[in-house]
């Protein structure tokens, strides 16, 4: 069911009024002469407007994230300066004035948004020597490296595994791969990560159990593996299902009827179309990686954003948590956009400008 949703959301678009033209040699319907195919503007124009539109559509979402996280943290019973011992009221008032917390809510919000637009996420309430921006700048490269490596690994192994299982449908290889994939999907990252540390770090002693020395790639192997496994498993399943679905399409029958070798049929005719759901999955995969990075960074002691976020949550450091959540939300939106772009590049119906 999920998969159907993905396919539908990625290919079903409202038709632009009055934009009906003639077929184009590159479109998927090219074999059917005379069938009307949407043409909108020029190709480059479409992609640019498409990106602009998507960027524009992302602004309300991001705005909502900022507003909601701001409101929620201000709703909190007790302020950031509630310690075990109550502060004297004068000191408390001074502290609140210093951090601008004595102003009315809308003024505080205005200040915060103005700061955000200039890349200033405000001061951290607990790490008093750092601003939130500094902590983000500190953790972001680590988290991005980790996440990008995990996504790439998931794609690089998941796609071939899915194709293999699809071709070998019903055979031992297929069953084995799919059983592994079910296991990979079902085991959560916070179990996989310590298990990997136990096997490869403690028993086999191949890799460090935890730690981070800048520029030492062996520190990244286990975290990336732990993050990539569930994504890899999901991509393999998605790829297999989508390939089998595509292999039933009329153009595949046409390709076979022309006597093309099976290899060419699968790789050149089925694969591009079958990849669409996998590419659409890149956005939820990115969300999974971002959430998983909290666990992995905690388990393996990596100084990324996730660890700052968890520490911030433990310390009730509102500005830090808000800043991190906003950055994570922006990353997720960016990944959605990238996935959409990749889909439009893969899908000839979108590529040819059928999209409004």
């Amino acid at each position, binding site marked *: 069911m999920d998969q159907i949703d993905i396919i539908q959301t990625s290919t079903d678009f409202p038709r632009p009024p009055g934009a009906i033209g003639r077929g184009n040699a590159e479109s998927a319907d090219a074999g059917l002469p005379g069938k009307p195919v949407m043409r909108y503007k020029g190709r480059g124009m479409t992609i640019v407007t498409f990106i602009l539109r998507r960027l524009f559509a992302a602004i309300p979402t991001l705005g909502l994230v900022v507003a909601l996280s701001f409101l929620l943290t201000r709703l*909190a019973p007790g302020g950031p300066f509630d310690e075990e011992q109550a502060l004297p009221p004068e000191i408390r008032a001074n502290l609140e004035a210093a951090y601008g917390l004595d102003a009315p809510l809308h003024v505080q919000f205005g200040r915060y948004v103005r700061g955000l637009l200039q890349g200033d996420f405000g001061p951290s309430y607990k790490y008093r020597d750092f601003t939130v921006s500094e902590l983000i700048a500190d953790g972001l490269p680590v988290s991005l490296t980790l996440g990008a490596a995990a996504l790439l690994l998931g794609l690089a192994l998941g796609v071939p595994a899915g194709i293999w299982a699809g071709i070998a449908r019903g055979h031992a290889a297929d069953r084995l791969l799919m059983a592994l994939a079910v296991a990979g999907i079902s085991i959560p990252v916070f179990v996989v990560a310590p298990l990997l*540390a136990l096997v490869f770090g403690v028993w086999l002693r191949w890799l460090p159990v935890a730690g981070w020395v800048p520029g030492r790639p062996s520190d990244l192997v286990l975290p990336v593996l732990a993050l990539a496994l569930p994504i890899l498993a999901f991509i393999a399943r998605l790829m297999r299902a989508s390939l089998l679905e595509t292999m039933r399409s009329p153009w595949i029958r046409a390709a076979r009827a022309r006597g093309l070798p099976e290899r060419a049929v699968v790789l050149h005719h089925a694969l591009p179309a079958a990849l669409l759901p996998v590419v659409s999955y890149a956005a939820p995969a990115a*969300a999974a990686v*971002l*959430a998983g990075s909290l666990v992995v960074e905690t388990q393996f002691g990596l100084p990324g954003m996730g660890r700052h976020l*968890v520490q911030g*949550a433990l310390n009730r450091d*509102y500005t830090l948590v808000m800043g991190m*959540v906003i950055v994570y939300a922006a990353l997720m939106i960016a990944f959605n956009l990238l996935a959409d772009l990749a889909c439009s590049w893969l899908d000839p119906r979108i590529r040819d400008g059928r999209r409004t």
Partner: protein
Amino acid sequence: MRGGLGRDVRAALVRDRLAVACATMLALLVLAAVAGPWLLEFDEDQVDWAHMATPPFEATGHWLGTDRLGRDLLVRTLHGLRVSLAIAFAATLVALVIGVAFGAFAGYRRGRTDALMMRFVDTLYALPQVFFVIILTVVFGRGPLTLLVAIGAFGWLTMARIVRGQALALREREFVEAAIAGGAGTLRIVTRHVIPNLLGPVIVYATLTLPQAILVESFLSFLGIGIQEPLASLGNLIADGAGELETAPWMLAVPAACLLLVVFCCNFLGDSLRDALDPRDQ
């Protein structure tokens, strides 16, 4: 109609041995979580000074060993399972009630009300949920109640979408028309025709929400922002075990195995119920 649903469920369970095994396993686990800690001889926070960090299956009276403080791991795991299950059941119930009410209302009213309500759901969907759950735990403090609210706050979205789609489709079905033609009142149509047909997908989705809720709870407890010591949950037991990898790997193995068992069983059961109850497949 209701007899029909019961028959479908029974038929599915008979057909699918694995689903029966999963249902039995789940029932046993729930029973163990509820009754186990009373029947076993140790309390969950009782320290056995003579047997600290002993491995499982040694003749110490602790079947599955003890942690580094000498607390019985089996008892703690059962307690953790109890807490995790309680939160997950409650959160699923919250999701169920809000989701069914919201979705059924939107689907029933159709038109502008429906569009507006679903727009709201779409907006919440677009938020990075895990991170908002974390914000909620920061705001309301850590503890079981916060977790319940935070998980329930996002859990109902998918349920609302499913129920709304079903309600929209059901309104147009011939048997509803037939019932109207037969002179049935709104109440009779809703209770005898709409709700029984909604029930299948709702049950299926609820059994699939349950493991999701357990996973979110364990995820947060693993990070230390969920259930706090001395209260045990599967998540903080796993986190404990992950910290003692080198000296006491069973501290990770026992709660992790328990979690996987529950999640696997729920997912298998949900899948096979979906095969049995999904009206589109029949």
